[in-house]
């Protein structure tokens, strides 16, 4: 249990620092940045206290907002995907999730990509909607969502493959 706790604490801090010091300065093709800090939310244990999980996600988003001076957009997006994660889990893993037996290290690759894609798309859509905050620029929102999502999904899949060994419970 302490082992699991320390893994998630370290992951929280490392993802936060990598995000604010490195990945928010990528600015690929002008303004495309990946946001793989949400891996913390994606890889949080399935058996959890949902209240603590939602609070932790909110805290992570708020810290990112503090570093990037972005108001509360990351907090809003992160807390939303933390709330709807059970639905995404049920949709992507089906019966396995019902038995609470998911180990992210050994699920089917296709299912894992579906799961990551759903949550990343929702997160980025809310993020850019709140950042641009203007319904007349909805195409800019969709464009940013699409490009950033591709970048984030690629990075998330790569990170889960490379560090897959440590994710096993």
């Amino acid at each position, binding site marked *: 249990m302490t082992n699991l706790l320390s893994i998630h604490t370290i992951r929280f801090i490392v993802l936060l620092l990598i995000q604010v010091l490195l990945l928010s300065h990528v*600015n690929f093709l002008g303004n495309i940045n990946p946001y793989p800090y949400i891996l913390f939310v994606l890889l949080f244990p399935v058996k959890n206290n*949902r209240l603590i999980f939602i609070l932790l996600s909110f805290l992570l988003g708020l810290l990112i907002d503090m570093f990037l001076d972005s108001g*509360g957009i990351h907090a809003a997006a992160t807390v939303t995907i933390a709330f709807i994660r059970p639905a995404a889990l049920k949709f992507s893993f089906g019966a396995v999730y019902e038995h609470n037996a998911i180990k992210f290290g050994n699920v089917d690759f296709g299912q894992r990509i579906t799961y990551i894609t759903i949550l990343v798309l929702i997160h980025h859509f809310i993020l850019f909607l709140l*950042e*641009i905050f203007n319904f007349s620029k909805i195409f*800019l929102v969709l464009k940013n969502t699409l490009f950033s999502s591709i970048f984030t999904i690629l990075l998330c899949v790569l990170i889960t493959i490379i560090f897959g060994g440590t994710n096993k419970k």
Partner: protein
Amino acid sequence: MQQIVNFILRNKTFLLFVLLLFVSVMLTIQSHSYHRSRFINSANFLSGGIYNASNSMSEFFDLKNQNKLLQEDNKRLKSILYNTKQTPDTNYIDSTNYNKKYKFTAAQVIRNSYATTNNILLLNKGDNDSIKQDFGVVSSKGIIGIVEKTNRNYATVLSILNTTSSISAKLKKTPHFGSLKWNGNSPNTIQLSEIPKIATVAKGDTIITSGRSAIFPKGIPVGTISNFKLDNAENYYEIDIVLFNDMTSIEHVYIIENKDAKIIENILKDND
């Protein structure tokens, strides 16, 4: 009563989610209104310290370019200094040297951003260096933004690349003035609106600050006109300006304090 408690207990996750979402959306809305208190900002001990440490490492790799920029600035200032008339008489005390209106403080950008629609910079000077809200920030090449929040050692700057900021600017050759706003598209160009149709505008014209606000002195360079057209009502020009500053690489900046800002504000307030 029992039922209310039961309801809260049953839906506690959902209620917590709604509460947190509400808080974060409120913070977002707050940050979109110009100069309202941004509760969560990076001018604090934790994020300021971390950015400072990271910047002290990365600035090393940009030393060459920054030195070149500073040298150019020095060259320009020296040419002004030696081309003006000198007062050779050392006994003579020029009383106009006292009570200068503008005070400059050098600072370093420890976090720069230009990719979002609301860009904020972080400087390594704060209350301890008597930096306060609404001071102007310029670089050797031109205008950067306005100080927004300060703490003891750090200050956040509302960049001109921010859709909520608005700065008064004018054409260099005529006194027609308008306001600078950014449409969020490219970090090199910014938009000048409200220049009346009667003004003569041409591509390549220089735009400078107008000095109509208490923040920037008159004559700080902004950029050159790259494109212009009349707006829908055909009364005002909408002008695209290419900035002199490369907003994607700024390191050394100067903070301008207008010592008369308080007085000007008070007079304006009395008139309202």
